[in-house]
């Protein structure tokens, strides 16, 4: 039983990062109909920026976290403008186009970082204790608790923003129906930019948190991206609460299965899970199926 609790805790830690990634992906897809294959690269960029700020410039971890993520968010807006600028050439194949564009961006970013920073793994020295603390028989540490707190706070704050703020309402309107939103005077360009910016901001936070716990390396983004997609499918593409639920569930299930299967299998578990969901309960997906 204690083992189960331990695994649930570990799952929550990992799951909370998944949530950050999945929420970002979800809003980008929901508002802009872009399947962002470069999402993991923003996660990675955030980690590297933070590494520079914290390890090299010796800034405080939290300062590094915020500053790096804001920079990444702004960079995300730049990327969004680029995609948008050339989007009109895509004609009817918008999804094809954006997927290929984001794959290309992902290749450029990850390989450039690989050349510039080298493939060696590094760790962000957060200065926050990773000494084990015991809650009951569950082994935790301050950093991991922080990860859960930060990730969930960011997600909840964003959720509140989405629900109650004026801009959040504009975002939700665009989520449902772009043309209708434009026709009631919502500036879809600004909504798109902010959405992409927020999405990449959250990805960056995820990457920095992971960088403080584990290692960072240039290709860490692709792995994270796939997990994010898994969560999004699990929760329903386009569903904010689904992303939160899905992230938590996936994190916990992976954690539990890593206890029973060998390490590599736990990833296969996530994907088998997705396939089962798609076969038996794709309803979460069917909301936006026919385009």
């Amino acid at each position, binding site marked *: 039983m204690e083992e189960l609790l331990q695994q649930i805790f570990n799952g929550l830690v990992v799951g909370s990062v998944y949530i950050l990634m999945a929420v970002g992906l979800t809003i980008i897809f929901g508002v802009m*109909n872009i399947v962002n294959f470069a999402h993991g690269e923003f996660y990675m960029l955030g980690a590297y920026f933070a590494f520079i700020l914290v390890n090299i410039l010796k800034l405080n971890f939290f300062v590094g976290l915020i500053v790096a993520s804001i920079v990444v968010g702004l960079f995300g807006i730049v990327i969004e403008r680029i995609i948008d600028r050339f989007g009109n050439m895509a004609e009817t*194949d918008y999804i094809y186009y954006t*997927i*290929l*564009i984001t794959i290309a961006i992902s*290749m*450029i970013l990850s390989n450039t970082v690989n*050349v510039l920073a080298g493939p060696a793994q590094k760790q962000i020295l957060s200065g926050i204790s990773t000494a084990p603390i015991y809650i009951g028989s569950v082994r935790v540490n301050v950093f991991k608790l922080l990860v859960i707190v930060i990730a969930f706070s960011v997600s909840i704050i964003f959720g509140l923003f989405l629900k109650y703020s004026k801009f959040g309402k504009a975002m939700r309107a665009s989520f449902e129906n772009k043309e209708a939103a434009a026709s009631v005077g919502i500036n879809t360009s600004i909504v798109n930019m902010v959405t992409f910016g927020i999405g990449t901001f959250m990805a960056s936070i995820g990457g920095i948190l992971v960088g403080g716990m584990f290692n960072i390396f240039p290709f860490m983004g692709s792995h994270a991206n796939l997990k994010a*997609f898994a969560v999004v499918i699990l929760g329903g593409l386009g569903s904010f609460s689904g992303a939160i639920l899905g992230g938590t569930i996936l994190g916990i299930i992976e954690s539990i299965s890593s206890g029973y299967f060998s390490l590599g299998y736990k990833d296969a578990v996530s*994907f088998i899970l997705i396939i089962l969901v798609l076969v038996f309960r794709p309803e979460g997906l069917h909301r936006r199926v026919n385009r």
Partner: protein
Amino acid sequence: MKKIWLYLIGFAILAILPFFLSNAYKLHLLIIIAINVIFASSLNLISGYVGELSLGHAAFAGLGGYTTGLLALKGISPWLGLIAAVVITLVVSYLMAPVVLRLRGAYFVITSAAFQMTLFYLASNWLNVTGGPMGLIGIPKPALLIPGFGSVLLDSKLSFYYLSIIFAILIVIACQRLVVSPIGETWVAIRENEKLAVALGIDRFKYVRIAFIFAGVFAGIGGWLIAHYLTVVSPDDMSFELIVSMILMIVIGGRGTIAGPIIGAVIVTLLPEYLRWLGNWRMSVYGVILFLLVIFLPKGIMQLWGTISQKGILANLVIPRKE
């Protein structure tokens, strides 16, 4: 009649080409090009003609490779391995069809990606069966039984070149015939306007499944070829890099055309060779090239042929060309 001569001359050139090459490495590249033509043409069926971007396609290549690899290491003839590869990819694509084809657009993309990643992780981790990340090694080459000569082992690059070229030609012809037939027309109709196609009596699922199965089986044959050529099969044979490369081929060459995948395969195979001088920057430059291509030449190089070609391609599709 004129067209037949063009093809025959083309085949003749392909047949004697190896003798004009200066080294074995160039022959190796030709073999890879031939296999890539198979991969690209197969992906083109589902992603070019029907228009659904399948990110999981590399999985079928891997299935073909692993099937024959496993059997060959148990002493089974590679030719039976070929049959097995075809059967396995046929069965898997047939079973996957109802799951995957219910979805459209982004959902199809992600689902197919999920399928491929699952198989990738299974291949990487099922040490007993698949040999894990290192894969299966020591796969034998196929042997040809020629009456009167006995058994000829196809272990020279030259013999494998002819083997792959023959398969490539057969598969391209098969794709062309499918595309020109009413079946191919349903694909175009579904891609152009699904609602209208359905109203006209086209059962989308039935016809897209045909594309999906053929694509999977042809990719499996490509996987069989690669496995026996390299004598190694590993998770890299169904990696994300492979599917990106296949997509590049059809995007560069031109989706939804017969010549497109061929041109794309040639370029994508040779481009890294010419970019080698970039060293570590190679992949980043690759990304930049993909980026520029998607923006400026979304219909691929075939687009440069101009509107004449576009009309010609579609016209040949629906209306038989007057010879």
